[in-house]
C-alpha cells in the first residue's frame, strides 16, 4: 500500500507525520519504505538518519542540435505539445524548463539533425534506517522541472511493501506527480485561515485524481479550528488525527530528532493514526 502524506502549504508538519508513520510501521516489523519526494527541500533524512548505501545522479534526455543543417521547417515545433522548441531560420531554440523529454521532436525532424543528450536533474539516494528502507530525491539548484526526479524515486519503491511518501507541499505539478500511484492520502493542516484555503485546493487535487484523503490537524489549538472542522464535516472528509501544540515536539523537531522517542503521548497518537491508515476504508476500498 502506498500512503502519500501531503499538505496544502509548507511547514504544517508533513515531515513530522510521514517520518513517524514510517518509523512506527517499521517498529511493528512491517516491510516499509519511506520515500521523500519533497525534492526541493527533502528533510526526512534529518529525522530518520539513514545510512546511505547508494547514490545516483538522475538524468533526463533533452533534445539538442549539435551539428547538421536545420532547415527551420518547424516540424519539431508543430509536434511538441509543450511549446518547448522554437524553430529559427537555420537553428532551433530549446526551452529545457518546458521540455517533457518525450523525444518526439528528435524522431520527427525530417533531416534528422536533432539528437538527445543526457541532462542531470538531481540526486536519488537509497539506504536504510534500522528496519526501514529509505529513499529520497534532491533536485539540483536552478533545475526548473522536478517531476522526472520524483517519478524516479517513486519507481524505486518495491511493489507489495508499505510505502510512506513525503510529498512536496502545495498543488503544483510536483505534488501531482507525487500523488500518482497513491492508494491513500493524508493531508496535514493547521487551523488557520490560510491553512484552510490551501487545504481546500489540496483536497480538490486529490478528488480530481480520484484519491481518498483524510486529514491530520497539527497544532489544533493554534487558532480557531471550528471553520476547519465545519468544512471537513460538510465535505465528509475524515479527520484521522488531531493534536495540540506541545513545546516538546518543537524542541525535538529543532534538534532533528524523532519526537515520538521522547514524547510518549505523541508516539501513541501516531500509533493510532497508523492503525487508521492501515485499516480497511469505510467506503470498502482497501
Amino acid at each position: 500500500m502506498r500512503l502519500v502524506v501531503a499538505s496544502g502549504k509548507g511547514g504544517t508538519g508533513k515531515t513530522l507525520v510521514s517520518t513517524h508513520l514510517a518509523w512506527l510501521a517499521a517498529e511493528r516489523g512491517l516491510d516499509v519504505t519511506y520515500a521523500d519526494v519533497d525534492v526541493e527541500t527533502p528533510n526526512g533524512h534529518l529525522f530518520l538518519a539513514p545510512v546511505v548505501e547508494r547514490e545516483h545522479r538522475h538524468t533526463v534526455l533533452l533534445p539538442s542540435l549539435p551539428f547538421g543543417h536545420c532547415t527551420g521547417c518547424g516540424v519539431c515545433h508543430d509536434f511538441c505539445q509543450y511549446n518547448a522548441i522554437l524553430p529559427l531560420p537555420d537553428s532551433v531554440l530549446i526551452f529545457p524548463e518546458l521540455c517533457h523529454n518525450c523525444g518526439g521532436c528528435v524522431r520527427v525532424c525530417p533531416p534528422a539533425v536533432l539528437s538527445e543528450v543526457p541532462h542531470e536533474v538531481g540526486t536519488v539516494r537509497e539506504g536504510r534506517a534500522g528496519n526501514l528502507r529509505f529513499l529520497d530525491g534532491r533536485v539540483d539548484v536552478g533545475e526548473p522541472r522536478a517531476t522526472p526526479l520524483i517519478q524516479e524515486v517513486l519507481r524505486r519503491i518495491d511493489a507489495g511493501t508499505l510505502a510512506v511518501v513525503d510529498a512536496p507541499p502545495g498543488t503544483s505539478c510536483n505534488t501531482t506527480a507525487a500523488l500518482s500511484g497513491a492508494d491513500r492520502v493524508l493531508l496535514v493542516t493547521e487551523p488557520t485561515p490560510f491553512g484552510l484555503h490551501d487545504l481546500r485546493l489540496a483536497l480538490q487535487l486529490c478528488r480530481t485524481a480520484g484519491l481518498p484523503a483524510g486529514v491530520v490537524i497539527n497544532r489544533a489549538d493554534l487558532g480557531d479550528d471550528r471553520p476547519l472542522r465545519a468544512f471537513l464535516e460538510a465535505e465528509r472528509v475524515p479527520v484521522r488525527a488531531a493534536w495540540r501544540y506541545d513545546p516538546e515536539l518543537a524542541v525535538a523537531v529543532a534538534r532533528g530528532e524523532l519526537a515520538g522517542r521522547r514524547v510518549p503521548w505523541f508516539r501513541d497518537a501516531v500509533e493510532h493514526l497508523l492503525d487508521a491508515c492501515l485499516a480497511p476504508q469505510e467506503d470498502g476500498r482497501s
Partner: protein
Amino acid sequence: MNGRLAVPVRDGVGLQARLDRQLGRAAAFVVVDLDGSVEPVYLINEGVQAEQGAGIGAAALLLQHGVTAVAAEHFGPKAEQALRAGGAALYTAPGGLTVAEVLERFRAGTLVRHELKVY
C-alpha cells in the same frame, strides 16, 4: 521602411483593434507590412489556451509570418527570449492604444525600445 510590425490585440480586427496586455495571452495579432506592399494580416492566437509556453507559441507564429518588430505592453520572459532569438526588435507601447496609433508612433520613432534586461 522595410519589415513587419506585429501588435497583440483584443476586440476588433484591422487598424482600430486595441493593444492587448500580454503577448502570449493575446486574443490575436495584427501584422502590418511597413512598406505598405501587403495588407495588414490578422492572426488568431491559437496557442492562447496552452497550459504553458503560450509566449513561445506566439513568438513562433509571428516569426513564421516574417515579423521583424513587435510592440506590446508586456513581454513574458520566454516570449521575449524567443523573439530576440528570431531577430525581432521589441518595443514597449502603452496599453489601450489602437494599432493605428502604435504604427504612427513607430513611424515617428517615439516608441520606446524594450531593452534587454540583464539580471
